[in-house]
């Protein structure tokens, strides 16, 4: 009742940091009224994004992505497995998202973070739903051997917009993935071809040389917060904890909607606000596409 007025009286008397801790909502609203956020960004601007490919040397494909302070490291390891009976000419991708306790003060060891399985499921669904990879490309010998790609995404620093960063790092790792060269030996088992014995003619090369996967439509996403009439793009962890209504939209490079996720929240979203979010996501997709292409071309130069 007396809260809004009470805080106005106190705001002139207390230090900014104290006001930020005690009345977080009022603190943010004062900024929003000036169309700016505490870290100086305008409402529609996302944080600085960097993508570095090949961060983990021992993995077949890897990427480190930073959106502001949120850091995600993903790596892909390939193993040979027998394909299932229903789809003998398809490989498989297993996606796992981890939030180790280093990433946030809210994560306790022994108890997985609340957000972890949610982001994990979202990530699996988005990547399989977008059709980014044709699983037939992961097949080796129909009915006998196929690739199993284990994609592990680790959150090293959780500062809001976890799904965006996780999706970007998963996609970047897939674009960096190099399928190793293998051949079938006499027992019918698939073995890795190392550089020394590539001369052996007795082994028939199943996969002649290292190759990259062809990526079809690449999904990118953007998380927005809805608060009263404002739409805040790419929230930090502090903003997410204060204003709880979050909308995540994933579009692919051809402009098609891959997924839309609004898990409840106190603010109701009318169609115009969702359309605004989609428009903001469209802009962001162009940015992210450029960043990913630049990262890929830097890798090729090396």
């Amino acid at each position, binding site marked *: 009742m007396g809260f809004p007025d009470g805080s106005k009286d106190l705001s002139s008397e207390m230090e900014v940091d104290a006001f930020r801790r005690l009345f977080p909502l009022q603190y943010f609203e004062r900024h929003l009224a000036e169309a700016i956020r505490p870290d100086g960004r305008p409402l529609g601007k996302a944080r600085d994004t960097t993508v570095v490919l090949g961060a983990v040397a*021992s993995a077949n494909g890897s990427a480190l992505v930073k959106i502001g302070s949120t850091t995600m490291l993903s790596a892909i390891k390939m193993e040979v497995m027998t394909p299932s009976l229903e789809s003998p000419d398809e490989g498989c991708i297993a996606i796992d998202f*981890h939030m*180790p*306790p280093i990433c946030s*003060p809210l994560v306790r060891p022994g108890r997985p973070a609340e957000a972890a399985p949610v982001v994990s499921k979202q990530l699996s669904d988005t990547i399989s739903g977008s059709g980014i990879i044709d699983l037939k490309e992961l097949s080796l010998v129909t009915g006998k051997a196929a690739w199993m790609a284990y994609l592990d995404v*680790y959150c*090293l*620093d959780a500062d809001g917009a976890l799904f965006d960063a996780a999706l970007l790092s998963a996609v970047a790792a897939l674009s960096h993935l190099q399928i190793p060269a293998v051949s079938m030996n006499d027992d019918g088992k698939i073995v890795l071809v190392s550089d020394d014995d590539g001369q052996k003619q007795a082994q028939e090369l199943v996969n002649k040389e290292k190759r990259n996967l062809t990526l079809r439509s690449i999904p990118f996403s953007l998380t927005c917060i809805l608060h009263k009439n404002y739409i805040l793009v790419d929230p930090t962890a502090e903003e997410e904890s204060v204003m709880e209504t979050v909308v995540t939209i994933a579009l692919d490079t051809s402009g098609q909607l891959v997924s839309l996720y609004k898990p409840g929240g106190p603010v109701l979203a009318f169609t115009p606000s969702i359309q605004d979010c989609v428009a903001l996501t469209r802009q962001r997709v162009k940015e992210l596409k450029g960043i990913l292409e630049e990262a890929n071309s830097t890798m090729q130069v090396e």
Partner: protein
Amino acid sequence: MEFVSPEGLRLDGRRPMEMRQIRAEIGAVSRADGSAIFEMGNTKVVAAVYGPREVQNRSQQMSDQALIRCEYSMANFSTGDRKRKPKGDRRSTEISLVIRQTMEACIMTNLMPRSQIDIYVQVLQADGGTRSACINAATLALADAGIPMRDLVTSCSAGYLNSTPLLDLNYVEDSAGGPDVTVGILPKLDKVTLLQMDSKLPIDILENVVQLATEGCKAVANYIREILLENTKQLEYRRGV
């Protein structure tokens, strides 16, 4: 198998008394009170410290000192073959315990009663010497968090293959079946806080190998001091001193 060639070079081209290249960075995790990345050759480790903060489990609260907790975990992709169970397995639990007890020796826990300090270490790439890299990273992270310590704790490993003491084993040398001695010291006080060895080693050789590992620890300590000094200078510039 030959681990030291007749010319005296190891598998990766190092001399027997040569350490791998070390690199450290403070403040990698923005949300942590203190954090650091430590690399020893191809072994890459991230450490984050949260604390001192309120004890989460009231029954464990100690009225005269701080509670130190430590968790060591390896990323699934950190080793050559993908690990299935990165956390609960015996090796991780043992290393968590070792790191906790090593750091407890140097943190001045009696200055922070009724509180909890969490040290989390995550191995991103494992190529031998993960235990040592974790301890070194934890030391830097604790210093970054401003937690009072009696001294730095630095750690290094050494082994004995082909009748030669070798400093800072990598994964291939470690899995060769020879002895692996890990030493952790408080460099200024010149005291040993951690000493672990597995496999067999004649006693007269043990002293040489431990001495070698201690020299390695002192080299790491010098590097860590440089990093901390540089970090402090940066903080001073930012405050306008």
